[in-house]
């Protein structure tokens, strides 16, 4: 059983193909683990055994016919921000308590059984920060999620449930979404691997919108190899349903995993750009003060190992990156304030019980249904869009956004990928920043810039700190260069074993 738990996606798929185990047996096993999970990763009424086993049986039938698709029959769980026909969707909010979507998110379809999907079996829905807003999963209306490495700490957010479930080996893989770092940061805090692709690679249809120009779906698993397999199935043009979906050919992101670093770059050896603003003591300009010592250390070590494997380090500049915090929160809040207006108690979701009139119904429904962080962002968003403030805030932020993106454009002239921290600290204690929203925002400093520029970004485990808490390193690629990121990550994972470490107490 231990082997099953630790098995990655590729391994489990192999076992299924070799008939060592059936999809039904696998899903029974993981469903049991999911229901018994103590970290709060799963939405308690987000299970549907009948649907899970139906999918598993369908997968088994396909395997019996000789279908050798690389993900067929492997269990997966979905962040509760993706709508699913057969499983309740709450987006971590009371507003959608018990909500049943009449359709599946495109990403779920792409990974699922039938409709030409990859054939993965859905175990359940994963807890997340409410409407994907948060960095700790403390904003879920249902329960906090505990970091499997230390149950007194947060797993990160907003895809905290996804990260914890994968880290605790309750499922081999999960979907997450990343708007400002919500895949990368929890992956880092939980010691797993996660990737956010280029904006527009994965369809947003069925992914409940938080910030439309920033949201992206991505896989979370325990290796770059697994992430590559998952990402290849998740990403496909969805031209009929999502106007922001990129019209580009599907890609096999596993194809370049084995390329040696000395030839992975556009001009030979891979050049890794290290932003001096984020420096970790690897350049002459010294360490950036806001990063924890152990993080700097582990990332520098990782970079040294990559150098030894044939990569070159190059210093680059991202002069506007520090502005990412106000720019992101203004744009994201503005878009969110509008996206969440549909939650009004009229067509679906929560409605207050005894409204006096229509306005009362709106106000009570929304104030009851939304948690504090969501209310805060709606207020900020409505304010920055309101008459008289639009130019100074929203428009200004969109202009600086372009400057941030142009910084990356210039940087990629000199390098192939950019490396840096994911977060300035490791996972903090539950409750530490719960009453300080701005402190939460400041911790996003490293993940926000790539989100604003729409660039693909990854987090891979590079070590543990003194308290045995995982540390992740971020890799950022140029537009559409996911397979290069995965290549670098995979090469790193062939010479290190940080990604194989399991949280203490994980069976």
């Amino acid at each position, binding site marked *: 059983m231990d082997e099953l738990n630790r098995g990655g996606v590729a391994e489990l798929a192999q076992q299924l193909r070799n008939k060592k185990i059936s999809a039904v047996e696998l899903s029974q096993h993981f469903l049991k683990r999911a229901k018994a999970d103590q970290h709060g990763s799963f939405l308690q009424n987000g299970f549907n055994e009948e649907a899970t086993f139906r999918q598993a049986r369908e997968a088994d039938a396909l395997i019996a016919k000789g279908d050798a698709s690389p993900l067929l029959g492997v269990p997966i769980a979905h962040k509760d921000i*993706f*709508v699913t026909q057969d499983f309740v*969707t709450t*987006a971590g909010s009371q507003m*959608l308590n018990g*909500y049943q*979507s*009449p*359709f599946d*998110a495109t990403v779920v379809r792409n990974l699922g059984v039938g409709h030409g999907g990859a054939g993965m079996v859905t175990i359940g829905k994963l807890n997340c920060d409410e409407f994907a807003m948060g960095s700790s999963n403390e904003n879920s209306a249902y329960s906090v999620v505990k970091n499997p490495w230390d149950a007194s700490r947060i797993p990160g957010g907003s895809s905290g449930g996804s990260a914890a479930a994968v880290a605790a080996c309750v499922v081999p893989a999960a979907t997450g979404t990343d708007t400002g770092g919500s895949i990368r940061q929890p992956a880092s805090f939980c010691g797993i691997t996660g990737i956010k692709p280029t904006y527009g690679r994965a369809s*947003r*249809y*069925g*992914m*409940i*919108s938080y*910030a*439309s*120009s920033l949201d992206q779906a991505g896989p979370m698993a325990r290796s770059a190899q697994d992430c590559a397999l998952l990402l290849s199935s998740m990403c496909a043009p969805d031209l*009929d*349903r*999502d*106007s*922001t979906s990129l019209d580009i050919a599907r890609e096999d992101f596993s194809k370049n995993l084995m390329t040696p670093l000395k030839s992975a770059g556009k001009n030979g050896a891979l050049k890794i750009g290290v932003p001096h603003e984020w420096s970790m003591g690897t350049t002459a300009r010294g360490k950036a003060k806001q990063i924890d010592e152990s993080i700097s250390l582990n990332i520098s070590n990782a970079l040294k190992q990559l150098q030894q494997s044939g990569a070159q380090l190059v210093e680059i500049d991202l002069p506007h990156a520090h502005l990412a915090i106000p720019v992101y929160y203004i744009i994201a809040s*503005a*878009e969110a*304030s*509008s996206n*969440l*207006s*549909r939650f*009004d108690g*009229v*067509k*679906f979701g929560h409605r207050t019980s005894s409204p006096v009139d*229509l306005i009362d119904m*709106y106000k009570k429904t929304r104030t009851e249904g939304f948690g504090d962080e969501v209310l805060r962002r709606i207020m900020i968003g*409505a304010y920055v*869009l*309101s*008459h008289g403030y*639009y130019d100074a805030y*929203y428009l200004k932020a969109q202009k600086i956004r372009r400057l941030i993106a142009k910084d990356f454009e210039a940087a990629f002239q000199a390098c192939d990928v950019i490396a840096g921290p994911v977060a300035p600290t490791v996972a903090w204690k539950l409750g530490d920043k719960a009453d300080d929203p701005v402190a939460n925002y400041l911790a996003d400093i490293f993940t926000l810039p790539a989100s604003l520029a729409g660039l693909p970004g990854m987090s891979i485990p590079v070590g543990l700190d003194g308290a045995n808490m995982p540390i992740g390193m971020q890799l950022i690629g140029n537009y559409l260069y996911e397979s290069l990121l995965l290549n670098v990550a995979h090469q790193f994972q062939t010479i290190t074993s940080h990604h194989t470490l399991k949280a203490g107490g994980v069976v």
Partner: protein
Amino acid sequence: MSTKLVQGYEVVIGFETHAQLSTQSKIFSRAPIAFGAEPNTQACAVDLALPGTLPVMNKGAVERAIQLGLTLGSHIAPKSIFARKNYFYPDLPKGYQISQFEIPVVQGGEVSFFLNDEKKTVRLVRAHLEEDAGKSLHEDFVGMTGIDLNRAGTPLLEIVTEPDMRSSDEAVAYAKELHKIVTWIGICDGNMQEGSFRCDANVSVRKPGAEMGTRREIKNLNSFKFMQQAIDFEVRWQIDQIEDGQAIQQATVLFDPDTGETRAMRTKEDAADYRYFPDPDLPPLVIDEEWIARVRSEMRELPRVMAERFVRDYGLPEYDAAMLTQSQQMAVYFEAVAKACSQAKLASNWIMGDLSRRLNAQEMTFEQMPIKAATLALLITRIQDGTLSNNAGKQVLDALWVEGGDVDTIIVSKGLKQMNDTGALETIVDEVIASNADNVAQLRAGKEKAFNALVGQVMKASKGKANPQKVNDLLKIKLS
């Protein structure tokens, strides 16, 4: 340029018209838009704003916007942006309407028409694409309102004019002309009872030469009659207010057809801060020259162009040309008749006169015209060649309308052939002169009416069949 003042005040009117586009599916979803379906059976997940849904643009809606722009001589924006207009109302499922704000698809243009023989031109500010909201049903439920979202997402073109109109007559004439245009080019079915064509009138008054007055907006006028009544009431109301020393407050008003009055609405939200911003779910709409050229080449001849051609090629007065191009069918009919009988002005007279009268009396449209163009052309020819008098021609028309048949057969069966034989006519004329000595004497004494009496006698004697023109000529010759 004549401006009609009301109690010494100048009336200033601008219109915003919402025309529902005649597409198969909605502007941002693939649900159908047929009128009258059971509630919420034409509202798909996207229309209901279910979590996770996203908009995808309908090409047919954009084509129709281009067609309107070309018709009105507007600039078609090569790049235009969709924006969210944020407000809360139960018939607005997303809590925002996808519309266009800073950069609309159609910019400028004009609408020209005749108002009592005077040519008027109303300038357009813009026309933009947006989605319609759903419907609220208040009557059937106690203390509750029922919301039907079938209409939510129906494509609209909002057509906005400059405040160029100066009277309710002019405003209604503008609305009728715009209505004709959108139905002519086929972008809107123009069914006002079903809400396909709804007008909001912005009305203000001022003393001539003074600054623009504060305007009030009369919403959702869906009949020409109501437009007239509503504007007239509103103008008188505003003038009364001003004369009483009250300032006009900007307001949205509704017209009550039962009372004939306008009344300010309860405001939906304070100061209407719509927080417009570009919709991040929709990249910019790009329309290139090739597309515009293709649409232009596939369009029917535009009414303006056709009217100009009628003036140029058929020598019609501008007024006639404008009247005949009221509807596509009428214009095509006219041209067929004119070509067949080479009598454009007569064809115009018959169509604008007798035929239109009959159609209106029986509430028929030109498509239901029972008389073929070739038939009317023949009728006109028979009058021109003297076979029929004008009066007899009208009798033939009656018969054709009610019984059908063909012109020549009816002439024979009703014995309507005009007497043209000069010899036979002369005989009758001589007899009449001979037996009406009094009239002749009066005529010689200078009484012109006596001449008509003599003509009348000849007509009577010929049982109405004499060619009146010939009778006139003969009498003149014989009495000179």
